[in-house]
């Protein structure tokens, strides 16, 4: 997946390059993603531009 637009910090379900759902809960997004064809679907997180991690 090359490009995505979404709310900072949220998990999104992307189907055919279009965001179809978003949530703070990754598990919820992975469950929802099961409804879409596997080959068209990606679950990813929108990082805040100034995010830092562990």
């Amino acid at each position: 997946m090359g490009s995505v637009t979404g709310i900072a910090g949220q998990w999104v379900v992307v189907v055919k390059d279009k965001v179809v759902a978003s949530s703070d809960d990754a598990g919820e997004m992975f469950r929802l993603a099961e409804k879409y064809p596997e080959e068209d679907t990606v679950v990813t997180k929108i990082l805040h531009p100034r995010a830092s991690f562990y």
Partner: protein
Amino acid sequence: MSAIDFQFNYKRSITIDRLTQRPILDAASGTPLEVFHPFIPCVISSEKRRSRSTEGLLDSGSDGVVIPRTLAEYLELDLEPASEPMMVADGRNMERFVSKIMLTIGRGGRYSDPIEVEASVPAKGNPPVLIGREPVFRLHTITFVEAEKRLEMNPYRKV
């Protein structure tokens, strides 16, 4: 492990501010801020479940693989308290759990063999999938071509 060379473009994101519901702007140009991160496509599996395709952030500052707790719960992982807490970059200790997962790199029908990984699961927080050094950086030679916003991953071969 199957030896596959990968090349991935960085993921381009335009981020919407939670409060204003508007794109975060580039301070210099006033246009929506584009950010690029070195995510790689992957699938994460447990003995019980297999995720849809997802993306992990290559993070050389992380010792290993980190997944959020809500993903661990989705995968129905057996979480064991870690013997040591996770120390984050600012020196704080964070309670964590550990569990075995299988990490498969790739997408679109082109995948590595699954790699068994002991993943860390922070008790709090909502990190992305972080792909740290062990074992992915040990098993691959990874080149970040920052100027072109892409990376190359090749199975490590001793010369």
